[in-house]
Protein backbone atom coordinates (compact mmCIF):
# COMPACT_ATOMS: atom_id res chain seq x y z
CA UNK A 1 0.00 0.00 0.00
CA UNK A 2 2.83 2.37 0.94
CA UNK A 3 4.55 1.49 -2.30
CA UNK A 4 1.42 2.33 -4.30
CA UNK A 5 1.00 5.61 -2.42
CA UNK A 6 4.63 6.51 -3.16
CA UNK A 7 4.20 5.66 -6.83
CA UNK A 8 1.01 7.68 -7.02
CA UNK A 9 2.57 10.74 -5.38
CA UNK A 10 5.55 10.47 -7.72
CA UNK A 11 3.21 10.37 -10.71
CA UNK A 12 1.32 13.38 -9.36
CA UNK A 13 4.55 15.34 -8.82
CA UNK A 14 5.74 14.57 -12.34
CA UNK A 15 2.36 15.54 -13.69
CA UNK A 16 2.39 18.87 -11.87
CA UNK A 17 5.88 19.97 -12.91
CA UNK A 18 5.81 22.23 -15.96
CA UNK A 19 6.99 20.73 -19.25
CA UNK A 20 10.70 21.24 -19.85
CA UNK A 21 13.06 21.05 -22.77
CA UNK A 22 14.83 17.70 -22.71
CA UNK A 23 18.35 17.05 -24.00
CA UNK A 24 18.83 14.38 -26.68
CA UNK A 25 21.74 12.44 -25.12
CA UNK A 26 21.93 9.92 -27.97
CA UNK A 27 22.35 12.58 -30.65
CA UNK A 28 24.44 14.93 -28.47
CA UNK A 29 26.97 12.17 -27.80
CA UNK A 30 27.28 11.50 -31.51
CA UNK A 31 27.62 15.25 -32.28
CA UNK A 32 30.37 15.59 -29.65
CA UNK A 33 32.41 12.55 -30.62
CA UNK A 34 32.60 13.01 -34.37
CA UNK A 35 34.54 16.33 -34.38
CA UNK A 36 36.92 18.44 -32.27
CA UNK A 37 34.64 21.46 -32.44
CA UNK A 38 31.26 22.24 -33.99
CA UNK A 39 29.53 25.59 -34.58
CA UNK A 40 26.90 27.48 -36.61
CA UNK A 41 24.01 24.98 -36.37
CA UNK A 42 21.11 25.14 -38.83
CA UNK A 43 18.10 22.84 -38.33
CA UNK A 44 15.83 21.93 -41.22
CA UNK A 45 13.38 19.30 -40.01
CA UNK A 46 15.34 16.08 -39.67
CA UNK A 47 18.51 17.71 -41.06
CA UNK A 48 21.25 19.42 -39.07
CA UNK A 49 23.84 21.42 -40.97
CA UNK A 50 26.85 22.78 -39.07
CA UNK A 51 30.53 23.58 -39.41
CA UNK A 52 32.62 20.80 -37.88
CA UNK A 53 36.35 20.99 -37.27
CA UNK A 54 38.52 17.92 -37.58
CA UNK A 55 42.33 17.82 -37.91
CA UNK A 56 42.43 21.59 -37.84
CA UNK A 57 40.13 21.98 -40.84
CA UNK A 58 36.54 23.19 -40.80
CA UNK A 59 33.99 21.59 -43.12
CA UNK A 60 30.28 21.87 -43.82
CA UNK A 61 28.54 18.80 -42.42
CA UNK A 62 24.98 17.63 -42.92
CA UNK A 63 23.60 15.06 -40.51
CA UNK A 64 20.41 13.08 -41.00
CA UNK A 65 19.04 13.14 -37.44
CA UNK A 66 16.70 10.24 -38.15
CA UNK A 67 19.44 7.80 -39.20
CA UNK A 68 22.11 9.69 -37.15
CA UNK A 69 24.46 9.53 -40.09
CA UNK A 70 26.40 12.25 -41.88
CA UNK A 71 25.28 12.76 -45.46
CA UNK A 72 27.99 12.90 -48.17
CA UNK A 73 28.29 16.32 -49.82
CA UNK A 74 30.42 15.68 -52.91
CA UNK A 75 31.80 18.84 -54.49
CA UNK A 76 31.09 21.12 -51.53
CA UNK A 77 34.05 21.06 -49.16
CA UNK A 78 36.84 22.06 -51.52
CA UNK A 79 40.35 22.04 -50.09
CA UNK A 80 40.82 25.75 -50.82
CA UNK A 81 37.53 26.88 -49.22
CA UNK A 82 36.98 27.92 -45.61
CA UNK A 83 33.27 27.92 -44.60
CA UNK A 84 31.93 30.82 -42.52
CA UNK A 85 28.16 30.28 -42.33
CA UNK A 86 25.70 27.59 -43.44
CA UNK A 87 21.91 27.17 -43.70
CA UNK A 88 19.86 24.15 -44.83
CA UNK A 89 16.38 23.94 -46.42
CA UNK A 90 13.66 21.91 -44.65
CA UNK A 91 14.03 18.95 -47.03
CA UNK A 92 17.82 18.91 -46.64
CA UNK A 93 18.27 19.25 -50.41
CA UNK A 94 19.71 22.78 -50.52
CA UNK A 95 22.55 24.32 -48.52
CA UNK A 96 23.47 28.00 -48.63
CA UNK A 97 27.09 28.57 -47.63
CA UNK A 98 29.23 31.65 -47.08
CA UNK A 99 32.85 30.66 -47.66
CA UNK A 100 36.25 32.21 -48.10
CA UNK A 101 38.17 31.13 -51.18
CA UNK A 102 41.20 32.68 -52.84
CA UNK A 103 41.07 35.80 -50.63
CA UNK A 104 37.43 36.32 -51.55
CA UNK A 105 34.32 35.77 -49.44
CA UNK A 106 31.51 34.33 -51.56
CA UNK A 107 27.93 33.13 -51.21
CA UNK A 108 27.18 29.78 -52.83
CA UNK A 109 24.19 27.48 -53.16
CA UNK A 110 24.76 23.73 -53.04
CA UNK A 111 22.11 21.39 -54.46
CA UNK A 112 22.48 17.83 -53.29
CA UNK A 113 20.71 16.32 -56.28
CA UNK A 114 23.21 18.02 -58.62
CA UNK A 115 26.21 17.67 -56.29
CA UNK A 116 27.59 21.06 -57.31
CA UNK A 117 27.86 24.59 -55.97
CA UNK A 118 26.64 27.70 -57.75
CA UNK A 119 28.02 31.12 -56.88
CA UNK A 120 25.34 33.69 -56.04
CA UNK A 121 26.51 37.21 -56.95
CA UNK A 122 25.64 40.08 -54.61
CA UNK A 123 24.18 43.17 -56.24
CA UNK A 124 25.55 45.73 -55.44
CA UNK A 125 28.76 43.91 -54.49
CA UNK A 126 29.54 43.36 -50.81
CA UNK A 127 31.08 40.90 -48.39
CA UNK A 128 28.60 38.22 -47.15
CA UNK A 129 28.72 37.02 -43.56
CA UNK A 130 25.67 35.14 -42.23
CA UNK A 131 23.06 33.32 -44.33
CA UNK A 132 19.54 31.91 -43.84
CA UNK A 133 17.43 29.82 -46.26
CA UNK A 134 13.67 29.46 -45.98
CA UNK A 135 12.08 25.99 -45.77
CA UNK A 136 11.74 25.54 -49.52
CA UNK A 137 15.31 26.69 -50.16
CA UNK A 138 14.02 29.18 -52.72
CA UNK A 139 14.36 32.33 -50.67
CA UNK A 140 17.56 33.42 -48.98
CA UNK A 141 18.51 36.21 -46.56
CA UNK A 142 22.16 37.16 -46.22
CA UNK A 143 24.01 39.66 -44.04
CA UNK A 144 26.29 41.75 -46.25
CA UNK A 145 28.98 44.28 -45.38
CA UNK A 146 28.69 47.31 -47.65
CA UNK A 147 30.25 50.75 -47.23
CA UNK A 148 31.17 50.05 -43.65
CA UNK A 149 27.83 48.78 -42.38
CA UNK A 150 25.72 45.64 -42.34
CA UNK A 151 22.80 45.22 -44.75
CA UNK A 152 20.45 42.28 -45.17
CA UNK A 153 19.80 41.22 -48.78
CA UNK A 154 16.94 38.97 -49.87
CA UNK A 155 17.55 36.75 -52.88
CA UNK A 156 15.00 34.64 -54.73
CA UNK A 157 16.38 31.41 -56.14
CA UNK A 158 15.06 29.38 -59.07
Amino acid at each position, binding site marked *: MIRIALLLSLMLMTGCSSPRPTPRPDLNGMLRQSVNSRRDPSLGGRWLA*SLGQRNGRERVELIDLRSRNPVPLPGLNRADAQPISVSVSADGQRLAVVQQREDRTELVLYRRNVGATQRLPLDPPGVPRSVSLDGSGRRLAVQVSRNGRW*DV*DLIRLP
Partner: protein
Amino acid sequence: MPRPLLILLASLMLAGCNGRSERAGGALLATSQQAPALSGSGEWLAVISDRGGRPTVQLRRLSDRSVVSVPQLSRHQPHSSPSLSWNGRYLAAITQRGRRRLAVVTDRLNGRMHPLPLPGGRDPVQLSLAPDGQQIALQVTDQGRWRVELLDLSDLLEPDRPPGQSLSTPALSSEP
Protein backbone atom coordinates in the same frame (compact mmCIF):
# COMPACT_ATOMS: atom_id res chain seq x y z
CA MET B 1 16.32 61.57 -75.69
CA PRO B 2 19.12 62.88 -73.40
CA ARG B 3 22.01 60.47 -72.96
CA PRO B 4 21.90 60.20 -69.11
CA LEU B 5 18.24 59.22 -69.34
CA LEU B 6 19.06 56.52 -71.90
CA ILE B 7 21.78 55.10 -69.66
CA LEU B 8 19.42 55.13 -66.69
CA LEU B 9 16.72 53.33 -68.67
CA ALA B 10 19.21 50.75 -69.97
CA SER B 11 20.54 50.04 -66.48
CA LEU B 12 16.98 49.75 -65.13
CA MET B 13 16.16 47.22 -67.86
CA LEU B 14 19.29 45.24 -67.09
CA ALA B 15 18.47 45.22 -63.38
CA GLY B 16 14.96 44.11 -64.26
CA CYS B 17 16.25 41.11 -66.20
CA ASN B 18 18.51 40.07 -63.35
CA GLY B 19 15.99 41.13 -60.69
CA ARG B 20 16.26 38.30 -58.20
CA SER B 21 17.98 40.24 -55.47
CA GLU B 22 16.37 42.81 -53.23
CA ARG B 23 17.44 44.58 -50.08
CA ALA B 24 15.45 44.00 -46.94
CA GLY B 25 16.00 47.56 -45.72
CA GLY B 26 12.60 49.17 -46.28
CA ALA B 27 11.94 51.91 -43.76
CA LEU B 28 14.96 51.03 -41.69
CA LEU B 29 17.76 51.62 -44.13
CA ALA B 30 19.51 53.91 -41.67
CA THR B 31 20.25 51.17 -39.17
CA SER B 32 22.64 48.28 -39.38
CA GLN B 33 21.09 44.81 -39.60
CA GLN B 34 22.71 41.50 -38.72
CA ALA B 35 22.06 37.77 -38.25
CA PRO B 36 19.06 37.40 -40.63
CA ALA B 37 16.69 34.47 -40.09
CA LEU B 38 13.83 33.56 -42.44
CA SER B 39 10.77 31.62 -41.33
CA GLY B 40 10.24 28.26 -43.02
CA SER B 41 7.47 29.81 -45.12
CA GLY B 42 9.76 32.65 -46.22
CA GLU B 43 7.12 35.18 -45.14
CA TRP B 44 8.89 36.47 -42.02
CA LEU B 45 12.36 37.85 -41.47
CA ALA B 46 14.01 38.38 -38.08
CA VAL B 47 17.20 40.44 -37.81
CA ILE B 48 19.30 42.00 -35.07
CA SER B 49 19.07 45.75 -35.35
CA ASP B 50 20.32 48.58 -33.16
CA ARG B 51 17.60 50.13 -31.01
CA GLY B 52 18.91 52.98 -28.91
CA GLY B 53 22.38 51.47 -29.14
CA ARG B 54 21.16 48.05 -27.97
CA PRO B 55 21.16 45.08 -30.34
CA THR B 56 17.49 44.03 -30.47
CA VAL B 57 15.51 41.45 -32.41
CA GLN B 58 13.32 43.00 -35.08
CA LEU B 59 10.62 40.98 -36.85
CA ARG B 60 9.34 41.91 -40.28
CA ARG B 61 6.56 40.57 -42.49
CA LEU B 62 8.06 40.53 -45.97
CA SER B 63 4.79 40.74 -47.93
CA ASP B 64 4.21 44.37 -46.86
CA ARG B 65 7.61 45.04 -45.21
CA SER B 66 5.88 45.98 -41.97
CA VAL B 67 7.71 45.71 -38.65
CA VAL B 68 5.77 43.59 -36.15
CA SER B 69 6.39 44.15 -32.47
CA VAL B 70 7.45 41.27 -30.24
CA PRO B 71 6.66 42.56 -26.73
CA GLN B 72 8.37 39.59 -25.05
CA LEU B 73 11.65 40.66 -26.62
CA SER B 74 11.60 44.34 -25.73
CA ARG B 75 14.04 43.79 -22.83
CA HIS B 76 17.09 41.71 -21.90
CA GLN B 77 19.39 43.11 -24.59
CA PRO B 78 21.79 42.49 -26.21
CA HIS B 79 19.89 39.96 -28.31
CA SER B 80 21.59 37.66 -30.78
CA SER B 81 20.98 34.71 -33.11
CA PRO B 82 17.22 34.94 -33.85
CA SER B 83 15.51 31.91 -35.40
CA LEU B 84 11.90 31.42 -36.60
CA SER B 85 9.53 28.48 -36.95
CA TRP B 86 7.61 27.71 -40.14
CA ASN B 87 4.79 30.30 -39.87
CA GLY B 88 6.71 32.64 -37.59
CA ARG B 89 4.67 31.57 -34.57
CA TYR B 90 7.82 30.80 -32.55
CA LEU B 91 10.75 33.19 -32.39
CA ALA B 92 13.86 31.98 -30.57
CA ALA B 93 16.80 34.21 -29.64
CA ILE B 94 19.64 34.56 -27.14
CA THR B 95 19.08 37.22 -24.48
CA GLN B 96 21.04 38.68 -21.56
CA ARG B 97 20.15 37.97 -17.91
CA GLY B 98 22.61 39.64 -15.58
CA ARG B 99 25.98 38.21 -16.49
CA ARG B 100 24.55 35.17 -18.27
CA ARG B 101 23.29 34.53 -21.78
CA LEU B 102 19.93 32.77 -21.93
CA ALA B 103 18.19 31.20 -24.94
CA VAL B 104 14.43 31.81 -25.04
CA VAL B 105 11.56 30.82 -27.32
CA THR B 106 8.63 33.20 -27.58
CA ASP B 107 5.22 31.95 -28.68
CA ARG B 108 3.66 34.86 -30.59
CA LEU B 109 0.26 33.16 -30.61
CA ASN B 110 -0.27 33.26 -26.84
CA GLY B 111 2.45 35.70 -25.73
CA ARG B 112 4.34 33.14 -23.64
CA MET B 113 8.10 33.09 -23.30
CA HIS B 114 9.92 29.84 -22.57
CA PRO B 115 13.45 30.15 -21.13
CA LEU B 116 15.83 27.36 -22.15
CA PRO B 117 18.51 27.21 -19.41
CA LEU B 118 21.45 24.96 -20.22
CA PRO B 119 22.56 22.29 -17.77
CA GLY B 120 25.99 22.89 -16.25
CA GLY B 121 25.65 26.67 -16.29
CA ARG B 122 26.95 27.01 -19.84
CA ASP B 123 26.11 29.96 -22.05
CA PRO B 124 24.59 29.64 -25.53
CA VAL B 125 26.51 31.25 -28.42
CA GLN B 126 24.18 30.60 -31.35
CA LEU B 127 20.93 28.71 -31.96
CA SER B 128 18.68 27.30 -34.65
CA LEU B 129 15.02 26.39 -34.12
CA ALA B 130 13.62 23.53 -36.22
CA PRO B 131 10.91 24.79 -38.63
CA ASP B 132 8.21 22.83 -36.75
CA GLY B 133 9.47 24.15 -33.38
CA GLN B 134 9.89 20.64 -31.99
CA GLN B 135 13.63 20.87 -31.34
CA ILE B 136 16.38 23.44 -31.09
CA ALA B 137 20.13 23.24 -31.78
CA LEU B 138 22.32 25.30 -29.47
CA GLN B 139 25.98 26.12 -29.99
CA VAL B 140 27.68 26.25 -26.57
CA THR B 141 31.21 26.70 -25.31
CA ASP B 142 32.43 23.62 -23.48
CA GLN B 143 36.01 23.39 -22.15
CA GLY B 144 37.28 25.89 -24.67
CA ARG B 145 35.56 24.21 -27.63
CA TRP B 146 32.34 24.80 -29.47
CA ARG B 147 29.71 22.09 -29.28
CA VAL B 148 26.27 21.80 -30.79
CA GLU B 149 23.58 20.30 -28.56
CA LEU B 150 20.01 19.40 -29.39
CA LEU B 151 17.07 19.98 -27.07
CA ASP B 152 13.70 18.31 -27.59
CA LEU B 153 10.90 20.90 -27.24
CA SER B 154 7.97 18.64 -28.09
CA ASP B 155 6.68 18.67 -24.47
CA LEU B 156 6.87 22.47 -24.43
CA LEU B 157 5.61 23.65 -27.83
CA GLU B 158 2.95 22.38 -30.17
CA PRO B 159 4.14 21.95 -33.77
CA ASP B 160 4.14 24.89 -36.19
CA ARG B 161 3.74 23.08 -39.48
CA PRO B 162 3.37 24.31 -43.07
CA PRO B 163 -0.26 25.09 -44.02
CA GLY B 164 -2.05 21.94 -45.09
CA GLN B 165 -0.02 19.84 -42.69
CA SER B 166 -1.31 21.56 -39.56
CA LEU B 167 -2.86 19.17 -37.09
CA SER B 168 -3.48 21.28 -34.03
CA THR B 169 -1.91 24.68 -34.65
CA PRO B 170 -4.43 27.38 -35.47
CA ALA B 171 -3.52 29.85 -38.21
CA LEU B 172 -1.43 32.74 -36.94
CA SER B 173 -3.04 36.14 -37.24
CA SER B 174 -0.90 38.99 -38.50
CA GLU B 175 -0.55 40.54 -35.04
CA PRO B 176 0.15 38.56 -31.87
